[in-house]
């Protein structure tokens, strides 16, 4: 070994060793310090953070009737490692599935993200309480199977599906967009209606329990005796302003019809009823059958999932005359005694807007009572072409701003997630269509009678009725009356003043009351209650005119303002008026008087769904 000329070669070994250590140290540095992935993974190996789900808040109606509560549901969990021989047929019949379905489920479990044969995996979700009862008796026979408790929503009434909304599993995009990082895969979240808009109030706050587990993922006990655990905070209960009996009655009345009913308490903006027809039973969107039923509703040509009171967009028709009469007065275009002639319509040059036969000339009160088109054409032209504004553009802006002050054109800001805005044209729109000098009052005369470019939603029309009932202001319509142990958002209680002074309302309201007593809204007359109202008949490209009506009562100290839209129902007086009136009677008197039972019968039996829907459905 002495005089070993190869001795220097041991340096190569040193070099190799150094390189290997260098790589190791580098990689260890990356794994332990730079990259948090493995630390998290190690934590999840050693600890199990079990989420404690809070009870979701309950929902009551304005009279304290329970509408939505929680029902326990049971998920079957499986720990593959612990499964030994068992009677598959017995298991399948207990949970009411076939053997093939069972095999498919097990296959699916193995493909779960983060699948481990040592930890519980979801096998069957949401067993009914009956299935659960039978299964839990036999659970000892099925090693490796466990039951996990969950809660589902349960509804006491088969109505108000749109208003209440539903609860479903949180979507991937929702998890990604949630900046607070609250939701994880599999959590339940409000999908629409109140459940969605008050999600954060209803859901409460999740807690967790930390368990220690061994290398196989088996739970060994509580970590540090639960010192670090956090109890879940239950969701807050909601008291809705909805009157569930009125809501139910409204949905009955709207059976076989497409449309909406919106009832508001004018003084508070509280929504008393929010009927969207056709509707569905909210219980259909709960539990295991949710996906299937949702699909069916989604494919229904009548679009039962569409929340029509908030989303459907119609021309307001003659109900808009009430608004115009107020604006014209405010702007000094007319006084209550201003008279315009009407011989079956408004004629100017080659333009003619028809009207039905009635006495002439017409003053403001009579114009509303008889719903005279000509009166509003004259008034509108007088306003838009008025020199005092400088130009038609400026005149239109004044008119538009006045209309917008009644809540039209934009979203009202209701406490629902899916409200649509209406549409009120401004000068830019017409400049674009006709050129800056290419239009005047006559060009856009249809706006005067609620046709033309004007688009509103049913809730906006109901809000107009509330505005008139309040003589000049409105409070954002909202459906939640009270959050137990919480406060309503301030903006829901805000008072919005319209541009029209209080003094201009009485003549218009006179007209509306006369319309009920001896005009177009005759069908809405009630004994001992002074009802005011206005019909509307909106032309539309889909078929027969939409039947529209808005009412409020009693005239002094109004308790309810209501708007009814019946799609393709024809004249407002034919369907919308009796429906609105029955709703009103139901709310104010609690029951329908015997003299009007025939009317109720007639409405309940009527089916007005245009055949076009069925033809379309067949084509599909």
């Amino acid at each position, binding site marked *: 070994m002495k005089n070993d000329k190869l001795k220097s070669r041991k340096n*190569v*070994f040193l070099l190799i060793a150094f390189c290997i250590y260098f790589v190791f140290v580098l990689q260890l540095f990356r794994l332990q310090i730079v990259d948090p992935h493995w630390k998290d993974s190690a934590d999840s190996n050693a600890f199990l953070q079990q989420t404690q789900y809070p009870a979701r808040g309950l929902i009551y109606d304005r009279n304290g009737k329970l509408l939505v509560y929680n029902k326990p549901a049971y998920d079957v969990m499986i720990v593959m490692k612990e499964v030994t021989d068992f009677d598959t047929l017995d298991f399948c019949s207990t949970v009411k599935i076939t053997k093939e379905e069972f095999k498919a489920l097990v296959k699916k479990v193995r493909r779960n993200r983060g699948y481990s044969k040592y930890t519980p995996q979801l096998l069957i979700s949401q067993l009914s309480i009956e299935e659960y009862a039978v299964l839990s008796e036999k659970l000892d026979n099925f090693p490796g199977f466990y039951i996990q408790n969950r809660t589902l929503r349960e509804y006491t009434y088969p109505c108000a599906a749109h208003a209440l909304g539903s609860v479903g599993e949180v979507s991937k995009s929702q998890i990604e967009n949630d900046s607070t990082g609250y939701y994880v895969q599999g959590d339940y979240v409000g999908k629409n209606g109140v459940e969605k808009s008050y999600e954060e109030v209803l859901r409460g706050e999740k807690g967790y329990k930390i368990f220690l*587990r061994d*290398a196989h993922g088996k739970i*060994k*006990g509580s970590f540090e005796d639960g010192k670090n655990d956090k109890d879940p905070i239950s969701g807050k209960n909601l008291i809705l302003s909805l009157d569930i009996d009125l809501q139910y009655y409204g949905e009955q009345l709207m059976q076989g019809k497409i449309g909406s009913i919106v009832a508001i308490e004018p003084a508070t903006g509280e929504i008393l009823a929010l009927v969207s027809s056709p509707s569905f039973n909210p219980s259909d969107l709960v539990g295991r059958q949710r996906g299937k039923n949702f699909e069916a509703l989604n494919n229904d040509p009548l679009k039962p999932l569409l929340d029509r009171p908030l989303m459907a967009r119609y021309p307001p028709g003659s109900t808009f005359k009430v608004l115009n009469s107020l604006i014209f007065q405010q702007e000094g275009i007319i006084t209550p005694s201003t008279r315009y002639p009407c011989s079956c319509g408004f004629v100017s040059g080659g333009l003619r807007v028809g009207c039905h036969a009635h006495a002439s000339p017409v003053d403001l009160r009579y114009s509303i009572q008889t719903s005279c088109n000509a009166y509003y054409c004259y008034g509108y032209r007088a306003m838009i072409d008025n020199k005092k504004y400088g130009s038609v553009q400026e005149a239109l802006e004044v008119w538009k701003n006045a209309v917008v002050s009644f809540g039209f054109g934009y979203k009202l800001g209701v406490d629902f997630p899916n409200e649509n805005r209406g549409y009120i044209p401004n000068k830019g729109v017409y400049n674009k269509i006709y050129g800056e000098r290419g239009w005047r009052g006559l060009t856009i005369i249809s706006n005067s009678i609620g046709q033309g470019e004007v688009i509103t939603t049913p809730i906006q029309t109901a809000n107009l009725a509330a505005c008139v009932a309040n003589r000049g202001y409105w409070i954002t319509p909202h459906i939640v009356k009270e959050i137990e142990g919480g406060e309503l958002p301030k903006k829901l209680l805000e008072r919005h003043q319209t541009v029209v002074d209080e003094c201009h309302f009485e003549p218009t309201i006179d007209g509306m009351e006369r319309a009920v007593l001896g005009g177009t809204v005759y069908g809405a007359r009630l004994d001992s209650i002074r009802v005011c109202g206005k019909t509307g008949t909106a032309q539309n490209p889909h078929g027969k005119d939409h039947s529209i009506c808005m009412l409020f009562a009693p005239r002094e100290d109004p308790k309810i303002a209501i708007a009814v839209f019946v799609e393709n129902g024809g004249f407002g007086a034919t369907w919308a008026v009796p429906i609105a009136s029955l709703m009103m009677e139901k709310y104010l008197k609690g029951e329908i008087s015997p003299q009007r039972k025939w009317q109720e019968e007639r409405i309940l039996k009527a089916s007005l769904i245009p055949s076009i829907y069925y033809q379309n459905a067949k084509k599909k």
Partner: protein
Amino acid sequence: MPRKNSILSSIDWPLVLLYFVLIFLGWISVYGASYDYDNTNIFSFDHRAGKQLVWMGCALFLATIVLLINAELYDVLAYFIYGAVLLLLILTIFIAPDIKGSRSWLVLGPIRFQPAEIAKFATVLALAKYMSQYEFSLQGLRSYIPILLIIFIPILLIICQKETGSALVFFSFFLMLYRKGMPGVLLYLAFCAVFLFIVVIRFGNIYLQEGEVGSEGLFFAQIFIYVSQFGFFLFLMKDWSSVKILLQMGLFVVFVAIITNLFVVVDYNYFGYFLLMCTSVFCFWNAIKNRKWTYILIAFFAIGTIGYSFTADYLFDRILQPHQQSRIKVLLGMEDDLS
């Protein structure tokens, strides 16, 4: 007691210390990885850590016995032990049960052990005995034959047991052979084989430029081969003037490649081939001019390694078992360990 003293003083104490540090860390790791909620006593024999302690004690006991046995006994028994282990390895192929795809475990009641583990030190003994012969030296191909036989017979037997991982360990003997005089080039070639394999597998399917042009893995391999040729010229041939020419060739090709790429998207791999072709031709020319045939070997190195880089994919996909493939992919960070 002079003899005992001599044993104690002949012990490599730093090494023993390192050994103790290692087994201590191993013991702690076992305890941490198999933490038992109900049984936290590290000395408890019901616990894996406790069992590990038993094994550690046994090992120390054996080590002491090994030290106490007269070293000459190993010298005498070396070939017998080696022969016996070879027989055991052959026997294992036929009688071992299939455990996770490998037939390398002998089962004797509750005890299972792998003869391949014993084969490691039996081979060490046999090699030591052979190489400690008077006047032994690694010179000439002939002197390698017995050594390679001693190493490769157990390797083949272990591969027959489908325990490729253990067989790989035997290749570390080549480090020892290098220390005893094996040419360093061989070690370097082995390094090249591993390095090129990894580069091609890891980066072969990544493209250099958009439009899937030019394999990154092949590109790295080409650079590596070119630089290796540099090294050969510099350290093996000590031919400074040729190194300059080699450098000029490289710069020229890089220049042309970059200029061309300004106009069309080029596959840099083609320029790599072209460069290596040039350097290889240059090697041949040098060989003829200087009458030094080693130059031809450098050319063959380039051609051979390029060919090897081509086949690395094939080797990986066809020769290696799926579990081996996935192990390499996990090692190279191309896949997550899912088990």
